[in-house]
């Protein structure tokens, strides 16, 4: 059963992403990219970057968004009907949420003891700065020849970086970069 194997592999990957996704948001990106682009090659790095772009312009956590998107596209790309893709989506989204459900159930039971626990603070003391490194690596992993095709890419990158530090709305910046892409890259013949 090719489809069942694919479902199982998707479930295992997204369960792992949910279980080790410390720091939320961008900190989870290197883990997701490693699983879906490098290890399983379910999607290309370009597609992955596009999912991140979609996540930046829609509400909702990036881990869910990539689970839902990848669950659908990997199944349909292998030639299965859209209904199986929806099921793949649901499997991935569920898989990424289950670790949180288990962990938060335990946390709620021991909340008063965990609150000021020195051991927990100790475990987080190195993890917190490490998470900053994970976010930086997410950016570095996406700065490759597939996403940065020429000098124009670097111009867009620099302008958006400065504008974003100056607190320009990220959704507006994504839209403007899309327009820039249309204007800067001529129609292919």
């Amino acid at each position, binding site marked *: 059963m090719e489809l069942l194997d694919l479902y199982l592999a998707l479930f295992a990957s997204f369960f792992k992403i949910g279980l080790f996704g410390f720091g939320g948001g961008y900190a989870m990106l290197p*883990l997701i990219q490693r699983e879906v682009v490098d290890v399983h090659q379910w999607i290309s790095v*370009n597609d992955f*970057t596009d999912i*991140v772009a*979609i996540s930046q312009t*829609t*509400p909702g*956590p990036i881990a*869910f*968004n990539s689970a*839902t*998107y990848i669950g*659908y*596209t990997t199944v349909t*790309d292998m030639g299965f009907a*859209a209904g199986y893709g*929806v099921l793949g*989506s649901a499997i991935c989204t569920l898989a990424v*949420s289950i*670790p*949180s459900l288990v*962990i*938060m*159930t335990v946390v*709620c039971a021991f909340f008063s003891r965990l*609150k000021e626990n020195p*051991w*927990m603070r100790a*475990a*987080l003391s*190195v993890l917190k*700065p*490490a998470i*900053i*490194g*994970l*976010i*930086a*690596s997410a*950016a*570095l992993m*996406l*700065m490759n020849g597939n996403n*940065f095709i020429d000098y124009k*890419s670097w111009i*867009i*990158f*620099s302008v*958006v*970086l400065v504008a*974003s530090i100056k607190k320009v709305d*990220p959704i507006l910046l994504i839209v403007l*970069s*899309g*327009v820039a*892409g*249309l204007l*800067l*890259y001529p*129609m292919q013949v």
Partner: protein
Amino acid sequence: MIPLIRNEVVNKKLWLDDSEFMDMLAIAQSMPGPIALNTALFVGNKRSGFKGSIFSGAGVILPSFIVILLIAMVFTRFRENHVVERIFRGIRPAVVALIVSPLLGLGKSAGVNFKNIWIPLVVALSVWLLKISPVYIILTAIILGIFHFIHVKQIMKK
């Protein structure tokens, strides 16, 4: 997203008071998984146990599930389209810029300073260049933190 959650949970529904909310947020951010999901699961569990967390979890997952599923269904048809490809050529470098820009602020709030800046640097380089799995990085960081704590405790005893 956090001010939105706080307004709903603390101000409107009175499910938690402000200090409970802050404690909960600190824990939800320290645990793996999306912060919005962890927060929802916590509030659901506090109000009506495990069943409550199932419902609050479903509530936070479903909207993005539906939106992204629709986008996936539509987008897969236009992926090869030239116009869409040109638009995304412009967007991809912007995506990376938006990941880089909050780094300084996040670093400050995570307590990164000149003494421990080697930690994010080593992590970034080993994941990017040496292709070490973030799973090992996370496990190592947790173990190092605990060892450091034990070490400091022993020095304090002497």
